[in-house]
């Protein structure tokens, strides 16, 4: 059975998150988006953990469901098209490891997924003696990633341990600012225990496949959502039973049960390309190399982005595509598509009304973006949207990569000429 999985989210107990990030909110948005298995996130937070114990009950092995009395109340308010989908929760947390190794500060985020409350409790017990797990749902622990991994494996060898958003400059395994160049540098003799990495919004599987040392790892995607309407902006597609062990097996062995990932366009990230915001200079890694890493306007070193960092560590060319690979689907959130078509914003009431109509007519957002036949959408009187969705599915979009803290933009229709940075437009067809 096909399952869409989003392991990495945050509750309202994490910094800078929406107060709607409750189990109810996640349940509701899981149905709207069409996700079947959602990570609880933040299981180290004592209050969140007690909410989890209170509101969830065991379903299949290692999976949990919202208690019937809570779920039925939410279901009543949802359109029929999505009401009857099952939602499962899986226990997860993101840990921020901050420590120093080989004379440098390292800041690496890691995702941990476990099958039961007992494991959560035993981990929280250890973590609460290592650091402060009460103040932030994503706790900071002054512990080497490797030691964290060994604590987790000692408590439950069935746990999943996945380095999170591995290319983010500041907080990740390969981050240019405080990460490592190789997995071995971080995990030493425990390196074989790392079987999967998370792409994060700033990279896609193709970027990761340029590094042969990642060939044996499973690439998964999650949303890292800080509010429930953002869940599933990236996700992983599995073909497996609803069961923790099957999910774990799919992720750890990268077998046929792992279908592929749903991706954000990585160019949208704030640090995809290199450049200088103030000088309005944006370079691809190749251009940066040509210029010797120096800004032609101010002659100072450019701020280096994720794409450059990947090139730096990779041993395969930019164009490299493995012959056989897991599926990679790029999506633009439906609400953004509607906003673009309507030439309005994602906050607009009309835009949300259309969103609601589409969901009520066809089903979840993922069904609309990925499955429903274009002609069916067209036939039902949504022709302008069916065209946009068709273009998105083909990857026929206009991309302005982000750089030096400026978000990139992805548009389905040719954007009106604004002040474009010092580089050409590129189309994107993978």
């Amino acid at each position, binding site marked *: 059975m096909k399952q869409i999985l989003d392991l990495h989210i945050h509750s309202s107990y994490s910094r800078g998150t929406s107060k709607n990030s409750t189990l109810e909110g996640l349940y509701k948005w899981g149905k709207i988006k069409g996700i079947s298995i959602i990570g609880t996130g933040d299981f180290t937070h004592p209050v969140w953990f007690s909410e989890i114990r209170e509101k969830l009950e065991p379903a299949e092995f290692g999976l949990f469901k919202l208690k019937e009395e809570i779920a039925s109340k939410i279901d009543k308010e949802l359109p029929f098209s999505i009401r009857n989908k099952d939602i499962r929760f899986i226990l997860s947390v993101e840990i921020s490891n901050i420590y120093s190794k080989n004379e440098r*500060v390292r800041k690496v985020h890691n995702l941990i997924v476990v099958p039961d409350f*007992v494991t959560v409790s035993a981990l929280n017990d250890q973590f609460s003696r290592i650091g402060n797990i009460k103040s932030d749902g994503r706790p900071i622990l002054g512990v080497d990633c490797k030691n964290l991994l060994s604590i987790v494996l000692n408590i439950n060898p069935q746990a999943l341990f996945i380095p999170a958003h591995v290319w983010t400059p*500041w907080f990740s395994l390969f981050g240019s600012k405080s990460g490592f160049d190789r997995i071995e540098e971080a995990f030493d003799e425990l390196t074989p225990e790392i079987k999967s990495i998370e792409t994060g919004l700033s990279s896609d599987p193709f970027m990761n496949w340029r590094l042969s040392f990642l060939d044996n790892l499973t690439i998964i995607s999650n949303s890292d959502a800080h509010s429930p309407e953002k869940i599933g902006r990236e996700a992983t597609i599995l073909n497996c039973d609803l069961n923790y062990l099957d999910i774990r097996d799919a992720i750890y062995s990268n077998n046929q049960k792992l279908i592929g990932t749903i991706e954000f366009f990585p160019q949208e990230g704030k640090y995809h390309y290199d450049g200088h915001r103030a000088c309005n200079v944006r370079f691809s890694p190749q251009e940066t190399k040509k210029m010797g890493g120096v800004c032609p306007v101010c002659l100072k070193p450019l701020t280096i982005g994720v794409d450059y960092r990947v090139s730096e560590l990779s041993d395969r060319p930019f164009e490299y595509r493995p012959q056989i690979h897991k599926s990679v689907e790029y999506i633009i959130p439906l609400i953004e598509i509607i906003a673009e078509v309507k030439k309005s914003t994602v906050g607009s009431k009309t835009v949300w009304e259309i969103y609601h109509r589409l969901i009520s007519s066809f089903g979840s957002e993922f069904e609309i973006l990925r499955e429903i036949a274009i002609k069916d959408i067209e036939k039902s009187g949504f022709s302008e949207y069916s065209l946009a969705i068709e273009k998105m599915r083909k990857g026929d979009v206009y991309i302005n990569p982000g750089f030096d803290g400026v978000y990139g933009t992805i548009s389905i229709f040719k954007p009106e000429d604004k002040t474009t940075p010092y580089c050409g437009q590129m189309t994107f067809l993978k």
Partner: protein
Amino acid sequence: MTYWEELSLKQRKIIEGGDGPYIVNAGPGTGKTKTLIGRIAYLILNKKVYAERILCLTFTRKAAFEILDRLKLLDLSTLPFVNTFHGFAYEFLIKNGQNINLISDQERKKILENLLEKSNFKEFNLNKFSLIISNFKNGIYEASFQEKELIEKYDEELLKRNFIDFDDLIIKFDRFIEENKNKTRANEMFDYILIDEFQDTNIFQYNIVKKFLTPLNNLFVIGDPFQSIYSFRGASARIFDIFKTDFPNYKEETLDVNYRSSKNIVSLSNLIFSSNISSYSEQKGEIFLVETYDEYSEADFIIKTIDEKIGGTNLINVSDIEKSASFSDFAVIYRTHSLNKLLKKKLNKSGFPFQVVGEGAIFEEKEIEFVCLLLLYLNDESEDEFLRKIQRENNKDLFQDKLSQTRVFLNLPLSQLVQKIIEIWNINSTEDFSLFVGNIVQFDKDSDGLKRFAEYYKRLKQNEFYDYESDKITLLTMHAAKGLEFKHVFICGFEEGLIPYKKTGTLSEIEEEKKLFYVAVTRAKEELYLIKAINRDSKKTKESQFKKTIMSEFIKEIKDDWKKLFKKREIQMMQKRQMKIF
């Protein structure tokens, strides 16, 4: 590589020439412990002295363990006796067939609490009372009539329970040696005795140690007169003079190269006692005199600075950093514990991992401790600390009822049992409490969860609920800071009344406060921040009298941006008010 190759010429000279009565003045960071260990290793490996003939006394158990750990690396066939003075006394008496039943800190605390409650001695607290007893027994305090009465009662309580305390141990030790003077066998003497932190050794202890010397008088003492900070326990730097009078043929050496701190920090510390220690480090290091508006901005300054050094812990304030830093590189040092309350609150909010030295874990919080003791009792009625607690707190009403109500649920999974306990005993569930409950869910799977919990609790308690492996910011008092080192040190409350502390007025007291300050300053390896809040507890503060002693060209001054601060606070206040409206 042999052990000696890492030593300086001076250190080697001391190690090889330290026979007879020998004093080593070892300033901060000059390799005191290294030299001490080197000396022991030299005696065993080069002079072929039997390890059993060597006694090394340290000030803390931690120091003893550290020395033993390092000696173990040298592959010696036997290890010498390295322990604290109390540890030595205890082992000696046991070996000589004495029955010693030492009271635990907790048990002792309870007796004192009880006595104080019953007495009309409201003016002193537990710690003060404890110190009075100790000093009285050590013969360095003249107790008043009332105090003597209380001490007698305390001793009665001990006797009733068949316990002795740490001070009795020393008295007993001394008496035993005196009584058996003629019998004392030569093999109980030591050919070589070494005393660490000699400045903190009190005269009573010193006189006892001397009785273990063979006529060779190989007494090697190492310490720093400027770091003598335990006068309230009867220790004083005068002990060095006494040593010199006792052993007029003594030799003396001074270790005066600081390997720990960067140049500026060493220069600053030299100003305090006009000492003359040089620094080995090539680094200059930085010293900042920081003026913050009040204790809130003091805490904010510390947190902001740590965040910057770490390079930001969240996306809002990430920045590039060149150097390596981890949480354990930072220490916040203060004169009294009262200064850490706000800091703890703010650090808790920041999410940074930190630890307060000498402070308990969540298990020592009132409600949690209560439930833990109850669980221990439910598991095994011979563990009746719970009953005693109930009795002490006059909580006796209905408690038998409540106990039997609780017993009904003994077969529930542990966390559910605790839920029932919360209801039955009407326990206030704090955030820490939910953390505690979350942490014991792990025993739900076991049918003998209660028993497993009891084992787990006792195991943790043995380790003082503390995890040494992890990397945390350290908060500690000046007293607790002795012997430690950190890359970045913040000293809070650099204000008259705190540094030096207000009770002091006499010259000797000021002198000791100066020593405390000296200890605090010399903990820093790279950076030192002396922080003065202009207002504390809503009162204007005064400049520390130590400031003029240390003012010099290598101090940089920083001030809070007050305008910005006020604006921020105003906005916060407005937001709070607006929240109330809705």
